[in-house]
């Protein structure tokens, strides 16, 4: 499980912290640089001031060698920052500043008491960074026209301290903002995800009896896509369910009559007084059972066809081979009615599902046989015209009156007085299969046989 809120918090606060650290680092570096420039300039200036003040007087003293002069600074103790370090007679940081003056011959002439007795840096003009008694110092060395060396020095940590102060000054308000940001993010995400939680509650309330679309009027537009997709899914499910329910209701209704027939024949056989009566009822009972059997198998086929044959299962098939196989299965039925069955099969390819197309062919041919009287003729032909393949089933039966030709595709519809015991499902299965395959069916009158002519057109390629 990933939480949007947790992820947002971690990412946003993480990035924010990194940015703050970067800002602090940058301001530390900038502070260090600025302070360095300023302090360096002051170092030079104090060297020059020292030089202009004491170079001349030192010339007078040069004739009297002796111990170097030591200038004493303020040596009180003080803690704290800023004003706490400043006093009327000095500053706690005085011992972080030092200077030395050397004669051209390397003899020390003068130093501050914060400076060591050895040269703080090598006696050559310019800046240097040196280590004195474990502390970092910045020095500047200046040579007077008389060849004396003036060295000013300053503890480096003064600069670092300043830079750190600047960096902390930058970082501190940002650090204080961090928990506030976290809270704001938390609340914003909670507010934004409330709509998502509402959608999930809404979806949770849906079930088979309540497939109403979700209400998206009060939701942010970011979730509209989700809601629309869910609504479309709900609609599809609702349709499929309605179809399933209708199918079950239809099937239950249509099974009642054949089952009643089976029951009546069974009762008649049981209650028969004479043997021949019993045998007759048993014969009718057997036929009734066969009919229920056929109806059930057709219902299952139809339900399977309706449940939509996966188009993945589609492949290129030989229509003439398919027809030839199915007709072979039905030859016995045609023979029982002494019918002539003619096949005119030209090579034809069809793209589709083998099972359901087989069912389509079987239903059409079986219909032709059932509705054609004894000694009739049934002709089945296939041909291919360009991108289409055509299956034609013609018979010498009574045909279907024009005004009923649309109705025969209705589920469980049977033409009155046709005498055949159909389930009324055959053409529904055919129609369903054609819908899935994008095929077309047309009914007409056979030119040569005067009966019904059924023409089915299907695609040869995907």
């Amino acid at each position: 499980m990933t939480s949007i809120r947790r992820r947002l918090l971690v990412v946003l606060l993480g990035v924010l912290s990194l940015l703050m650290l970067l800002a602090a680092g940058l301001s530390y570096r900038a502070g260090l640089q600025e302070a360095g420039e300023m302090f360096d300039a002051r170092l030079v200036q104090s060297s020059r001031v020292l030089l202009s003040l004491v170079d001349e007087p030192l010339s007078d003293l040069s004739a009297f060698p002796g111990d170097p002069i030591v200038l004493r600074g303020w040596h009180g103790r003080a803690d704290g920052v800023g004003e706490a370090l400043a006093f009327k007679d000095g500053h706690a940081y005085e011992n972080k500043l030092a200077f030395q003056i050397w004669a051209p011959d390397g003899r020390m002439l003068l130093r501050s008491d914060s400076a060591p007795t050895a040269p703080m840096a090598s006696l050559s003009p310019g800046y240097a960074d040196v280590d004195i008694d474990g502390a970092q110092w910045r020095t500047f060395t200046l040579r007077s026209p008389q060849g004396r060396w003036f060295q000013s020095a300053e503890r480096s940590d003064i600069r670092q301290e300043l830079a750190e102060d600047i960096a902390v000054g930058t970082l501190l308000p940002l650090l204080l903002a961090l928990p506030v940001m976290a809270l704001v993010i938390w609340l914003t995400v909670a507010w934004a995800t409330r709509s998502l939680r509402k959608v999930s509650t809404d979806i949770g309330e849906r079930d088979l009896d309540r497939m109403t679309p979700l209400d998206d009027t009060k939701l942010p537009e970011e979730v509209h896509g989700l809601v629309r997709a869910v609504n479309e899914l709900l609609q599809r499910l609702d349709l499929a369910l309605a179809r399933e329910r209708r199918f079950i209701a239809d099937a239950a209704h249509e099974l009642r009559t054949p089952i009643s027939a089976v029951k009546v024949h069974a009762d008649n056989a049981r209650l028969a007084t004479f043997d021949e009566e019993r045998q007759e009822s048993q014969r009718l009972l057997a036929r009734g059972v066969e009919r229920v059997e056929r109806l059930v198998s057709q219902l299952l086929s139809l339900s399977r066809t309706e449940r939509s044959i996966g188009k993945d299962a589609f492949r290129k098939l030989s229509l003439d081979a398919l027809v030839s196989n199915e007709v072979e299965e039905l030859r016995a039925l045609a023979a029982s009615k002494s019918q002539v069955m003619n096949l005119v099969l030209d090579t034809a390819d069809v793209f589709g599902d083998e099972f359901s197309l087989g069912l389509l062919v079987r239903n059409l041919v079986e219909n032709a046989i059932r509705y054609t009287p004894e000694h009739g003729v049934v002709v089945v032909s296939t041909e291919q015209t360009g991108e289409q393949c055509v299956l034609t089933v013609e018979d010498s039966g009574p045909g279907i009156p024009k005004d009923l030709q649309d109705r025969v595709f209705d589920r469980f519809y049977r033409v009155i007085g046709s005498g055949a015991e159909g389930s009324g499902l055959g053409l529904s299965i055919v129609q369903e299969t054609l819908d899935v395959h994008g095929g077309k069916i047309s009914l007409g009158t056979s030119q040569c046989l005067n009966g019904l002519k059924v023409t089915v057109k299907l695609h040869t390629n995907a």
Partner: protein
Amino acid sequence: MRILLAEDDASLGEGIRTALRRAAYAVDWVQDGASALTAIGDGDIDLVVLDLGLPRMDGIDVIRKVRAAGGNVPILVLSARERASDRTLGLDVGADDYLGKPFDTPELLARVRALLRRSVGRATPTLEAGALSLDPARLTAIWKGHTLDLTRREFALLRLLMEQQGRPLGRETIQQHLYGWDEDVASNAVDVHVHQLRRKLDPGIIRTVRGIGYALGDPSDAAA
């Protein structure tokens, strides 16, 4: 007793017709609503067994039209529409009984008997006339304590005459109540059945009413 069966399903229709015939009823079988209405209009039908999902005219419309025309023939509806609301509708438009599919044949026959006896204002299940007793449910006739061995037609003829309680019936009418319209009938069939009954029971059991036909006789008179 002549029953009109309106059922479009060939197999079920054949089964019901067989069951009714074996219960000694003459059966006319039609397979659509319009034909049912015509047959009822022609009269001489004692009961209609009516399917509702009929082609050309729904069973409910058939009942409405029959009742609107003042027809009072008992109608037993036999339908796959078997929800309570369907039954209520069927009974309220004028059906006398309603049986859902699938049904038990003995129950169907029992309901037919019940409707038939009620339609002549009788409540007792058996028919009695002197020493003659007839049980339509078991298709048995007892004459002076002995069970008679009757054919279905003979039983049907006896039942018909007993239902009339002595009122005479013409040969033509009797024939219509013994044979369905698709059955072969010999021209003297009724006379033959009358002869057989007189032989098996008593010559006086059936009176010949001159110029009209036959009526149930008074067996006690005959015996005297």
